[in-house]
């Protein structure tokens, strides 16, 4: 690990700004306005779910709301709808709490079922690339934009939400916040409290898409073609 | 209330009627109008072309001309917008900064003056005809006058007002731009002319003779029969049957 050419580079910037170089003592100013906190201010969790559901239409995402008990069943239905034969899921601590451990065991009897396993290394990516469906939990869910936030780590590779043709996000109701503001603040506060920032934080909003050909919206380019959000009360 | 008319060079030389209508409207609402004869041009042709030193000579002349005025009112959003830039241009100049600020602070475009200063939104005018309005770029975006002209037009009795499609688009005038980049300017004004035709309006109204001269000149070249009139002309009309 190394840093090259820094002093010369930064001293030149300071000189052009007409002052000595700063390496400490800079505070962010109190900005004159903070409109980001006004969006969906004071909305209840249920109101946030309504906003999320409505926005799912805009982002070509299927929305299902269910209970903890019904979750395994709803996941199964979704997999059937996608006619999936192979599945990759994150090795999330919440799998047990939400009954997904059992569900995945059952799926394994009928389908190619793989739970992300750090011990087998790159093989996980190969499996993800071939899988029809990826399943993981949202860590923070942004109602305004219909976004699931995925903090990736050794048990939850980025490939799960990215490489299979379809992606299912399980959204615990309590992960809902008004917008990206609250997610960014949470990660910032964690950082200030000495909690390491994940090596990747993905804000995923529906399936991948492009408008690069004559401005026609094409859903499903490099990432998934289909996305389903399952909100769990 | 004493008001000095800032006629603008274009209206002084080419469109004297715009000045007459402006004077008559101001007098109708009880202003005492004078015309400082030492005024020339706001300096915009030179300023926008990058000739700052040349522009400043004309700007100083304007500052001197209106030194004793209480209010300065002109029939052009663009030219008045230029006066509003003077403080920025003379910033740090010990002799001219304060006079520049003084002039900027007392200068208004005519509809802005009527609505925002005098609180007049209905001049009791009558005008019969199908009218569309082009809100000039400098009037709306530089001077920030968006609502005043519309408010005044809507109060005119008998008017058949129709919105201009994509009205916020520039007409392609841009002062020296129209001469320096005639091909691009042509494409822009062709598009504007097309939008005016879509409204089927008999009259195209605006608050800046530069833009109107551009659009009108193009429409005439295209053989279109749309009359181009400054907003003061509509506001100063009291008869039915439109402009003779």
């Amino acid at each position, binding site marked *: 690990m190394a*840093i*090259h050419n820094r002093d010369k*580079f*930064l001293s030149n*910037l300071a000189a052009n*700004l007409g002052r000595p170089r700063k*390496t400490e003592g*800079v505070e962010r*100013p109190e900005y*004159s306005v903070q409109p*980001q906190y006004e969006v969906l201010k004071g909305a209840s969790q249920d109101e946030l779910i309504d906003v999320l559901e409505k*926005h799912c239409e805009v982002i070509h995402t299927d929305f299902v709301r269910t209970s903890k008990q019904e979750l395994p069943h709803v996941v199964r239905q979704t997999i059937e709808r996608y006619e999936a034969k192979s599945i990759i899921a994150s090795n999330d601590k919440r799998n047990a709490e939400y009954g997904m451990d059992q569900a995945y065991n059952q799926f394994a009897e009928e389908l190619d079922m793989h739970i992300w396993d750090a011990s087998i290394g790159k093989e*996980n990516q190969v499996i993800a690339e071939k899988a029809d469906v990826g399943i993981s939990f949202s860590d923070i869910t942004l109602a*305004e*934009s219909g976004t699931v936030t995925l903090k*990736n*780590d*050794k048990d939850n590779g*980025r*490939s799960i939400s990215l490489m299979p043709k379809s992606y299912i996000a399980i959204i615990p109701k309590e992960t809902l916040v008004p917008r*990206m*503001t609250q997610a960014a603040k949470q990660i*910032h506060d964690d950082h200030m409290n000495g909690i390491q*920032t*994940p*090596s*990747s*934080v993905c*804000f995923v*909003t529906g399936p*991948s898409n492009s408008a*690069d050909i004559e*401005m026609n919206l094409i859903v*499903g380019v*490099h990432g998934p073609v289909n996305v389903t959000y399952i909100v769990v009360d | 209330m004493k008001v000095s008319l800032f006629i603008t060079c274009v209206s002084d030389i*080419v469109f*004297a009627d715009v000045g*007459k209508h402006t*004077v008559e409207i101001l007098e109708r609402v009880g202003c005492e109008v004078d015309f400082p*004869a030492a005024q020339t*041009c706001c300096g915009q042709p030179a300023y*926008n*072309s*990058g*000739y*700052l030193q*040349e522009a400043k*000579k004309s700007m100083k002349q304007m500052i001197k001309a209106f030194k004793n005025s209480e209010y300065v009112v002109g029939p052009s959003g663009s030219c008045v917008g230029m006066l509003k830039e003077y403080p920025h241009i003379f910033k740090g100049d010990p002799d001219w900064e304060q006079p520049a600020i003084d002039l900027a602070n007392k200068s208004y475009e005519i509809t802005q003056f009527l609505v925002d200063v005098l609180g007049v939104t209905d001049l009791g005018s009558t005008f019969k005809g199908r009218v569309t309005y082009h809100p000039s770029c*400098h009037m709306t975006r530089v001077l920030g006058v968006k609502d005043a002209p519309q408010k005044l037009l809507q109060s005119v009795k008998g008017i058949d007002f129709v919105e201009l499609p994509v009205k*916020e688009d520039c007409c*392609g005038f*841009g002062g020296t*731009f129209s001469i*320096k980049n*005639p*091909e*691009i300017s*042509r494409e822009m004004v062709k598009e504007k002319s097309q939008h005016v035709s879509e409204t089927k309006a008999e009259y195209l109204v605006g608050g800046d003779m530069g833009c109107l*001269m551009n659009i009108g*000149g193009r429409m005439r070249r295209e053989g279109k029969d749309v009359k181009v009139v400054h907003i003061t002309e509509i506001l100063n009309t009291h008869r039915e049957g439109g402009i003779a």
Partner: protein
Amino acid sequence: MSVKIGEISYKERIDKGIDNDFMRQAVSSAQGRFRKGRLSQAEELGNWEDWRQLGSEIRTHTLENIDYYLHQLSEQVEKRGGNVFFAQTAEEANEYIENVVKKKQAKKVVKTKSMVTEEIGLNEALEKSGAEVVESDLGEWILQLDEDPPSHIVTPALHKNRQQIRETFADKRGYDKTDSPEELAAFAREQLRQDFLTADVGITGCNFAIAESGAITLVTNEGNAEMVTSLPDTQITVMGMERLVPTWEDMEVLVSLLTRAAVGQKLTSYITAYTGARLEEEIDGPDDYHLVIVDNGRSKILGTEFQSALHCIRCAACINVCPVYRHVGGHAYNSIYPGPIGAVLTPLLDGYDDHKELPYASSLCAACTEACPVKIPLHEQLIRHREIIVEKEKKSPVSEKIMMKGFAQWASNPAAYKLSTKVARTALKPWTKDEFVENGPGPLKGWTDVRDFPAPGKQSFRAWWSERAKGEKQNGNS
């Protein structure tokens, strides 16, 4: 490539743009959609001006302290196992990146769309050193196959139609299906998936680097940036030095402004903030990470009247409202940065010699300034450029100089001015017919080539005024 994209003259570029009906139709309809999207997002928020204000304050603060935040960023990246290289020039940046690629004996490099890598000509440099470089953004991939420069900073292949794209795919990759956008995109997905899986090195640009934690934020809709940052073991981020924010909270605000202003989306499909090399036991992400911070002429802009041009977040809102861009297209600017921001930035980064016409390619209608989500006074900066071209660079035409000298004398001398109001009509008489000039002389020629010019009235306003005053005086005396 570099900032400049070709050798064709300004006049030819303009004519070529204006004559390209397909391109103009495509640009016009894209602008319509972009504009509608941006305005409806602004309306929905209801306090868009506050958002712009906040965006502008964040950018101002960041640029005023850019040395501090770049220092902090580099410390954080190093702490997370990354290497940081500060490159003063394009050559330095390319050389460093080439060395990384060579050291890895990389055969294939896969990239995301990045303006700064276009600017420094990275692809050419890497190809010269023997590596295959694959652009993975759909639009960029199309252009790469067709060896065509981008014409828009968000949708780079905006100037191409589906038939042209189909032909390119057929010629270069043996594509044999229809020109439906869905089929074309599915083909690209299939082809590029293999590239992602086999690439040795991934290279991305950077939308916002977060100084406090060393995270790099990438904003895309296609998901290609996720592929590029997840799969290859070596990863290089190339960032223009100003693409920086102090904290996650600042990033969030600017991303919200970017996606709304660019395409009218609340957020794009993928926004990823990744930090350094992958952590222990992690599988996705690189084990060797490099951040290259590029100056390439930007530092000269600091401390000048153009500093706020560095606030740009590359949303293209100014491009999407510009009527000049609509009629001439992106290539007419002869720069990888087209439109209003391009007309401001290009001469700053690449000098006035090749780009002196750009600041004049604007009617100063200020639609760009109004659209900019971080409040860069773009049209005013174009005037500043013109002042430099006239006064410092002395590159304005002689005829114009004479005209402007004459203007100054005329407008600062009331007697001369008054005289002109008297004689203007007579002076234009030889060219006047039915109260209009249709074929004007001198500077009027450009005007009357495309439209009529009204003849000066029979009486100037000031003549009318003094007659009226006299009349009133007489009436008063009688």
